[in-house]
């Protein structure tokens, strides 16, 4: 009985609260009713797929970061940053590395890099670059590294 009472009370509180929150009081006379709606922002960002760098390749296409579709607020943007240690680690001994760099057509990608998109179709092409000296110095074996793309919905910087 006590439990039933508790449940009923909770249910009543919930319902009452909901009704109160959305209630519109009409004491008489002219009243303005504000109609509001909201459109949720949505967007799709594509990032490069897993890539194998051919041995001795100085520059390899990594793919693109692209704002494929977007419905953003006017003062908002989609920002993509990249996190990586920029070393390909040997699968047996991760202290043995091949340094690499990521580059756009205009600049190097580093910790300070951020690509900001506001319109669908905007994209940045990335390349993986390894110098010949680093290839020559590399020990035999398999190497790998994970690049993390951080995608955020941010205020547009004007």
């Amino acid at each position, binding site marked *: 009985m006590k439990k039933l009472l508790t449940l009923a009370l909770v249910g009543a509180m919930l319902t009452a609260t909901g009704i109160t929150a959305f209630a519109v009081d009409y004491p008489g006379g002219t009243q303005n009713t504000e109609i509001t709606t909201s459109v949720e922002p949505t967007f799709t*960002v594509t990032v490069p797929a897993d890539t194998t760098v051919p041995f001795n390749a100085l520059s390899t296409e990594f793919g693109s970061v692209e704002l494929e579709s977007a419905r953003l607020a006017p003062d908002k943007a989609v920002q993509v940053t990249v996190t990586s240690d920029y070393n390909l680690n040997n699968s047996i001994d991760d202290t043995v590395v091949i340094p690499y760099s990521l580059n756009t057509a205009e600049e190097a990608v580093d910790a300070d890099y951020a690509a900001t998109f506001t319109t669908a179709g905007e994209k940045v092409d990335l390349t993986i670059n390894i110098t010949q000296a680093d290839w020559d110095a590399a020990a035999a074996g398999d190497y790998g590294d994970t690049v*993390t793309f951080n995608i955020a919905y941010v205020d547009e910087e004007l």
Partner: protein
Amino acid sequence: MKKIAVMLLAVLLFCVPCMTAFAAPTEQKGATISTTVPATCDITFISVGGRIEEYSSVVDDHETYDRRTVHTYHIIPEEGKEIAKVLFGGEDVTSQVKDGYFTTPALTTDMTLEVIYKDAGTPVEPVSEPTSEPTSEPTSEPTSEPTKPDTSKPDSSKPDSSKPDSSKPDSSKPDSSKPDSSKPDTSTPEQSGSTDTSTPQSSDNSDTAKTGDTTTATAFVIITATAVSAAFIIVLAKSRRKETE
């Protein structure tokens, strides 16, 4: 004690929905970069008009060596021939040939060693620059001097202008001097330039971050949490009072 638990529960109910509502809309997606560095290098030998020896044994057309090793070859022209040009990885290394011996730099990639001969006594043609640059610079100069200088061979660096150049090197293999490393590795990027097109709502592999107008939802969550907490406290207080009575 029970009151404290109730208060904690109420605070928890109040806070947790709020934190969720204001969570930063950031998503992360990873891509893997991988590569394989071979343990060996192949050297392809081209020597028409003579032979190339290593450790006094004639080399095959191809030899496989451990990477970053250094090798010395003895270039021995046929009778009546002499060395006209030596190309290693497409680079003219004729000047590095001493008494018929050539020592490679440390091998880092597949290479081709091509020796071009001319009739003994014919003038040396001006050495033209290779059409294709080698993909790898030598990482070290040869350190080992030839151990068995062949003093019987004529010095090919001394031109004899009295004879025309009638024995031109085999020009039918113009590409043979190109280093093998110029060939693209067959393990091309799996999806170079491709993109992950997964959409946010339907896939775990999503690259999409969604945000919305959270004001209304947040207010409703706060009100609801408050109401539930209050109701819970009241009910528990009542039940406790009854128990004490």
